[in-house]
């Protein structure tokens, strides 16, 4: 009886703590809606696709930032996912245990670097590298393709995506590693027993059965990329415009808030920035929702 009431108390205690998390989420939403109300009332849903952002004339639309956020994050995933899968496969399947330990530790260290340090490294190393070598090369050889047109500034959507890719790689790698480790040893042995080569064993027994897990890992990486602020602000070029070229500067939802909030003078400007915050909230929510659906479907 006594222990029963203890259980109950513990259960209630946990219930309160976990509901706190939800309450904070609700409070943030309410506050954002309240703060952005003037902008919601004035611009309505067209805010999400209008691309004009003019604080002087008080004309606001977040289209360019939503595009920038989604585009830079997806591009980052495009680079980071194959890289992470390869690293994780190398660590679990190929590397000797000692080497795997050292490399795994170093990859995880990447996650501990503050994003402003990534930003600085990007400005002083990555951007000049892109400007002097990589972008001219891409422009010369693939300039007929719209993604690689325009002057090579170094700074821009491309630089931001590369830095984001480096930043999300440790997350995705760590999870992929756990997933590959969870594949039963017997499954590997079965594949080898049927006469498959190591490559066939990896693709058949390991990767194929981990597909939904890899997808989930990528979504976690995407979550980080969507909200990343500092490094992106330092590298993306902060231009409120949608352009097709990877070399052109852009702007993300997080970076425009970081850039303009401190000096936003008029109420409408503050409200519009809060509305961008709300949009970021909605976009992240939608991305997670879609991802969950896909994971569930892949599993079944």
């Amino acid at each position, binding site marked *: 009886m006594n222990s029963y009431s203890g259980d109950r108390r513990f259960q209630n205690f946990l219930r309160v703590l976990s509901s706190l998390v939800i309450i904070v989420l609700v409070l943030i939403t309410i506050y954002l809606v309240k703060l952005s109300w003037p902008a919601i009332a004035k611009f309505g849903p067209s805010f999400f696709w209008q691309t004009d952002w003019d604080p002087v004339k008080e004309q606001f639309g977040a289209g360019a930032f939503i595009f920038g956020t989604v585009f830079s994050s997806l591009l980052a995933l495009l680079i980071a996912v194959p890289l992470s899968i390869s690293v994780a496969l190398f660590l679990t399947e190929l590397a000797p245990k000692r080497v795997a330990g050292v490399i795994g530790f170093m990859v995880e260290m990447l996650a501990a670097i503050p994003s402003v340090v990534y930003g600085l490294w990007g*400005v002083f190393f990555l951007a000049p590298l892109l400007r002097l070598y990589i972008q001219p090369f891409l422009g010369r050889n693939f300039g007929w393709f719209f993604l690689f047109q325009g*002057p090579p*500034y170094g700074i821009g959507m491309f630089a931001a995506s590369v830095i984001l890719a480096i930043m999300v790689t440790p997350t995705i790698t760590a999870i992929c590693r756990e997933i590959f480790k969870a594949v039963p040893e017997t499954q590997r042995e079965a594949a080898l027993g049927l006469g498959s080569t190591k490559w066939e064993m990896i693709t058949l027994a390991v990767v194929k059965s981990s597909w939904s897990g890899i997808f989930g890992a990528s979504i976690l990486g995407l979550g980080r990329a969507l909200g990343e602020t500092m490094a992106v602000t*330092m590298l993306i*070029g902060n231009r409120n415009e949608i352009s097709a070229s990877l070399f052109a*500067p852009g702007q993300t939802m997080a970076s425009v808030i970081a*850039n303009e909030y401190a000096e936003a*003078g008029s109420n409408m400007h503050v409200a519009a920035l809060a509305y961008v915050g709300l949009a970021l909230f909605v976009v992240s929510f939608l991305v997670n929702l879609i991802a969950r659906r896909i994971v569930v479907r892949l599993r079944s």
Partner: protein
Amino acid sequence: MCRLYRFLILFNLCAYSYAHSAVISINGAGATFPYPLYSKWFSEYAKIDTGVEINYQSIGSGGGVRQLLENTIDFGASDAPMKDEQLEKAKIHIYHFPTVLGAVVLTYNLPGVEQDLRLNPEVVSDLFLGKIIYWNDPKIIAINPGISLPDTPVMIVHRSDGSGTSAVFTDYLSKISLEWKSKVGSGPAVKWPLGIGGKGNEGVTGFVKNSPGALGYVELLYAEKNHLKVALLKNADGNFIKPDASSITEAAAGFLKEMPKDFRVSITNAKGKNAYPISSFTYLLIYKKMVQAKGNKLKSFLNWSLGDGQRMAASLFYAPLPDSLIVKIRAQLKEID
């Protein structure tokens, strides 16, 4: 238990000494541009008057004005004067006190060009409107005889964050170019017709330093500290002026006659033989009525800043106020209760 008592006694002692110390602390917040000077002023002043502690947070002019209007700080600071509609919202009358002058300079990265580049208003507005695209444009060559300019595109770098620096620079552009005024306008954040944005003065400085062909605008301090090239700018009297303490002070002197009583004035494109055209005041924003003790302390600090304080300005690349203006500011100081 004994330990707990000891702790409580210690705690009480601390609380007691805190409540009885006579140090008055005054809190302010606002512009980042004068922050290096203000932090020096406040720490120097703490040595002169040990009874006061002035804290300043450089959160940006816009944030400073917002907090001042919400009465969460004792004084604010802003690069641009407050607008009429903002002043109307204030529950207590707010005074503007110019503290020092600063300049926004045009900085560029042109390898191989040793002499100082000269720019005039027409070229500057054309560059920032995207009408001049290459460095060897005939309009630039015409005012820079003897300099061989490269055939490279101009990469415009502007501030991405809202800032007083942008407000001053766009105010200047609006005065010299009707097209700029109608198309873009002025303010701490505007819709730039072209270019890439760097966060903070240090962001713009970094981009300009790293990108050949770049042209940007920063506070004088950042250009000097980073050894960037600074363009000479043609002023309203037709002379090409290098930004330094004396040419900036002269820009303020040129506006003395037209100076409104509350000092809310833009001094860009000032008249005067040697006046640098993109100069501006930076202000402290002070309530007319304050808690007596705080008000008195703040008044004596302001008095000091207009005397000894001005002499510290030049070493940090700010320009001191002209003497004739200081007389007027001291008169306004008397109006604070």
